[in-house]
């Protein structure tokens, strides 16, 4: 019998973590992640989860605890949001450079200043270039399933995974979620084996200074310089797309739910207008696409699930037939453009796809984005294109200044 409960995104995440049985959890509470950290500490305190919960004085330490524990072979978990994630920044790079399969939830929230406790994706977007895999979830079922997948991915490719989901929109909203079976999770997720066994019998030096050049070590072995090590991270990240897709398929076979490996599509087969989004805004866009179809506009949706490594090929394939591309996004590369749309443009360069692309910055700091508003924006885009505007400046949806 399946176990389906009506729970929040944070509860779904907590139950996933309980199922993967980490050895060490270190997290510092921050809105909107708080109820996730609370739930996990309750599990540990009540003996339901046999893990060490390390109480730390801040997020930098939380990730540092995870880095240390993961280095010596522990499965670890942490979670944070917004400025907490930014406070980790140095160690986020460190975790990826150390090739540690840490899994972290980022419950997406806008970053200060000015303060906002509400949702957008600027926090995890600003950690885009740290060498982590980033996966964005669109509903609570996907959260629980993705966290379990994240461990299998991370521990296969030795790259940390950030599982991102929208604060409040998902973290505090209740939905029916099917809880995966404990025994099946054990089968799906083998125990974690660190890339190097560190023990008193096999002492190693971890992360000493690396030099610009390659050199022989004391035993005459030719060792990487800094650049080789960084190249290996990039190489592994690019190759991890295969692993991510395999794990998604395997999960679908084992649990009956495949949320799409790198991205998912909604009615794109015959779509002329393709809406692209990441996380819950993409789910909202499916409602918009359905209503546009009722008005005779052939719209479809591409939901980006994996933002890093950026699925260039999959994106180009999904957008091949689009006549117009409309991107809705909750993150901004200030002084440039929306983060998602810039990456899509770079993925399309040289592919021959020349559909006009309009992008909308939407829902920053928790501003509500309704399906109707997305549909209206799409219609506005069509009007603009019909009147000869091929590409236009980024539009900030529902933003009124002056």
């Amino acid at each position, binding site marked *: 019998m399946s176990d389906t409960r009506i729970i929040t995104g944070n509860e779904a995440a907590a139950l996933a973590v309980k199922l993967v049985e980490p050895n060490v959890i270190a997290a510092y509470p921050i809105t909107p992640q708080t109820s996730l950290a609370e739930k996990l500490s309750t599990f540990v305190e009540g003996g339901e989860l046999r893990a060490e919960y390390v109480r730390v004085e801040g997020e930098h330490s939380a990730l540092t605890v995870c880095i240390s524990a993961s280095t010596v072979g522990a499965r670890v978990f942490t979670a944070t949001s917004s400025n907490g994630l930014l406070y980790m920044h140095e160690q986020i790079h460190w975790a990826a450079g150390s090739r540690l399969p840490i899994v972290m939830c980022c419950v997406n929230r806008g970053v200060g200043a000015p303060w906002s406790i509400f949702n957008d994706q600027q926090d995890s977007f600003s950690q885009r270039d740290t060498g982590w895999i980033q996966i964005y979830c669109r509903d609570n079922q996907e959260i629980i399933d993705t966290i379990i997948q994240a461990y299998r991915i991370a521990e296969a490719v030795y790259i940390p995974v950030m599982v991102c989901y929208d604060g409040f929109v998902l973290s505090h909203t209740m939905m029916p979620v099917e809880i995966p079976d404990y025994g099946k999770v054990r089968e799906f997720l083998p125990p974690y084996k660190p*890339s190097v066994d560190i023990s008193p019998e096999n*002492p*190693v030096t971890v*992360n*000493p200074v690396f*030099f610009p050049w390659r050199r022989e*070590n004391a035993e005459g072995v030719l*060792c990487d310089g800094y650049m080789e090590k960084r190249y290996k991270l990039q190489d592994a990240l690019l190759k991890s797309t295969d692993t991510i897709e395999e794990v998604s398929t395997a999960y679908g076979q084992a649990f009956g739910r495949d949320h799409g490996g790198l991205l998912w599509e909604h009615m794109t087969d015959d779509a002329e207008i393709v809406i692209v989004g990441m996380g819950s805004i993409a789910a909202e866009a499916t409602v918009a696409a359905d209503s546009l179809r009722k008005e005779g506009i052939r719209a479809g949706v591409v939901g980006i699930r994996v933002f890093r490594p950026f699925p260039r090929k999959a994106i180009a394939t999904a957008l091949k037939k689009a006549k117009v591309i409309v991107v809705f996004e909750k993150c901004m590369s200030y002084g440039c453009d929306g983060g998602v749309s810039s990456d899509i443009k770079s993925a399309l360069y040289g592919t021959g796809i020349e559909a006009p692309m309009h992008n909308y910055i939407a829902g920053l700091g928790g501003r509500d984005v309704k399906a109707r508003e997305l549909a209206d924006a799409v219609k506005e885009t069509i009007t603009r294109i019909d009147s000869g505007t091929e590409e236009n400046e980024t539009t900030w949806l529902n933003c009124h200044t002056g």
Partner: protein
Amino acid sequence: MEQRDKYISGICTPAIGEAGKTGDWSDLKPVIDHSKCIPETKGKAACFLCWLYCPDGVVTMSIPVEIDLDYCKGCGICAEECPPNAIRMVRKVECDE
């Protein structure tokens, strides 16, 4: 075939000189006046403050006290700490001349 690094991350086998002979980075080198050194004058284990304070661990706790100049960074802490001022920091170029 040359042996290649097997690690994916910045891990290496602990060994003396893992980072190469770092001693040649320094401008100064410590020179011991053994006639002033306490364990040597007393003929028994004593003092060894140079051994204790050396941040690079390149001083031996032995009679006579020895410094491995292949890895000494020339910081001068040993000379600063030595109670009878038995260690003097000397410019390497001057030594060469």
